[in-house]
């Protein structure tokens, strides 16, 4: 399969006023095939969120080429949606209206928006909370609103920035299963950032390990576990071997 998302030699340095510049990405490369599920793991601050923001069209890289479906990336588009690491919910909107945000901007009629929001809040386990405001939700619930909002516009590409980090372990497991189902049924391409190696292996076709800042692709692992993935897979020798290999690649990059 030809690469659906292709990034070559992406460089980005943040230059905050009155502060030392931070080189976030240094010659970062990635290829993602259409319909592929790719996870990125890497030390904190290595530029994972930065790269997702570049793909989303919010940040322009200093140099490098990014192609999507063979076309040069230019600005945000409804073919992509992000689940933000810090949720990014509008505090003055209820759960329902937060989920509807992207649909509203796409000028979807109100009745249809409402129906989609209702279906998705049920999907992420927020039925009954449609009329709550973000400050009335727990961290995990907020994160699920962010997930529902990203799914609402039915994008081809889902960019997920530690989308399950605020969830408790049990909800996380359930959400992983749901995500795999949505991914399989809707044939989406997913780029998934996480700190949990288990999660990355369980979900992905491939797992990329990034170097410490300035972030670049250090090594990519193909995950040849059969699909659909079963929960029991996590205790197989094959799974644990992968986990160890990835950990050994990652641990040299972690500086404490």
């Amino acid at each position: 399969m030809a690469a659906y998302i292709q990034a070559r030699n992406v460089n980005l340095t943040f230059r905050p006023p009155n502060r030392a510049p931070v080189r976030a990405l240094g010659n970062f490369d990635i290829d993602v095939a259409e319909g592929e599920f790719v996870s990125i793991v890497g030390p904190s601050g290595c530029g994972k969120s930065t790269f997702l923001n570049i793909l989303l069209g919010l940040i322009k890289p200093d140099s490098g080429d990014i192609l999507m479906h063979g076309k040069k990336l230019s600005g945000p588009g409804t073919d992509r949606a992000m689940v933000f690491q810090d949720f990014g919910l509008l505090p003055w909107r209820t759960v329902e209206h937060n989920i509807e945000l992207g649909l509203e901007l796409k000028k979807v009629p109100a009745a249809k928006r409402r129906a989609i929001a209702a279906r998705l809040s049920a999907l992420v386990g927020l039925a009954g909370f449609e009329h709550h405001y973000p400050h009335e939700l727990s961290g995990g619930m907020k994160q699920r609103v962010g997930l529902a909002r990203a799914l609402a516009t039915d994008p081809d590409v889902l960019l997920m920035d530690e989308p399950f980090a605020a969830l408790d372990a049990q909800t996380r497991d359930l959400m992983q299963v749901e995500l795999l189902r949505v991914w399989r049924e809707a044939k989406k391409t997913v780029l998934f950032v996480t700190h949990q190696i288990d999660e990355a292996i369980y979900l992905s076709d491939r797992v990329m390990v990034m170097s410490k800042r300035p972030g670049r692709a250090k090594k990519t692992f193909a995950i040849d576990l059969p699909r659909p993935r079963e929960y029991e897979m996590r205790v197989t020798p094959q799974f644990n071997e992968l986990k160890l290999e990835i950990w050994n690649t990652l641990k040299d990059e972690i500086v404490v």
Partner: protein
Amino acid sequence: MAELQADFAVTAAADAAAPARRLWRRLEPTALGAGGIVGLLLVWQFLPDLVPMKAGTKLFFTVPSDIAGTLWRMFATGSIWAPLGVSAGAFAIGLGLAILAGLPLGILLGRSNVLNAMFDPFITAFNATPRLVFLPLLLLWFGLGLWSKVAIVFLGALFPLLINTYEGVRNADKLLINVVRSFGAGEWDIARLVVVPNALPFIIVGLRLAIGRAVLGVVVAEFFGAQDGLGVVMVRAASEFKVDVVFAGLIVFAVLSLVMTGLVKLIEDRMSRWRPQQVSGD
């Protein structure tokens, strides 16, 4: 055993008194405030009986009951409506224009660094100058009628609205702007979906200040130039030593300001339902 029972009795009594105490705690600030005002009015009313006054002093003095009577007469005969209408008209038109100009301008300046750099010197200079010094010029340009008053009200109300809106817009959450941009929002959508809701508390503060400045503008214009309006009535009354009429005018202005500020509070409460409410720890 007996001691225990006594304890229960005390608790029960306390429980019975609890609702009354809760009610009092809710009413206490209002009751104390009202009590203060009533006390002050009483002292004022009986001051002439308590303190000996010379005839000359008495000429400039009045008591609450006289003021109340005068107010009543002004409304009963309807003599207040014409001047009040003139003042209120200037207030409403001037404030309305200030809102129509101040909000969009504040948003534009807050969102555009270029525009901001261009206009900032003017705004800073204008804001540092007391607007009332423009009164002679405005009277010259717009005459002694409605429009000079509207102009001074507009100038007074514009800057608090403009500057507060600007500050609120600057304060907008970058993450939220990025979120709506990622869903395809343009500048107009960003303003509508993030910037304005985020700036609302600032805008409300600006509106409250603007109302004060607008009332001040009306009063000063009517004291020093205009030929019609409640302020003019007050100045004439003062020159004829009708102190009760002056006070009556003052009270009408004060009540109008209070009503307007109350309306703003209502709008504010309606708009901030999404904000975390304080948890009452009873």
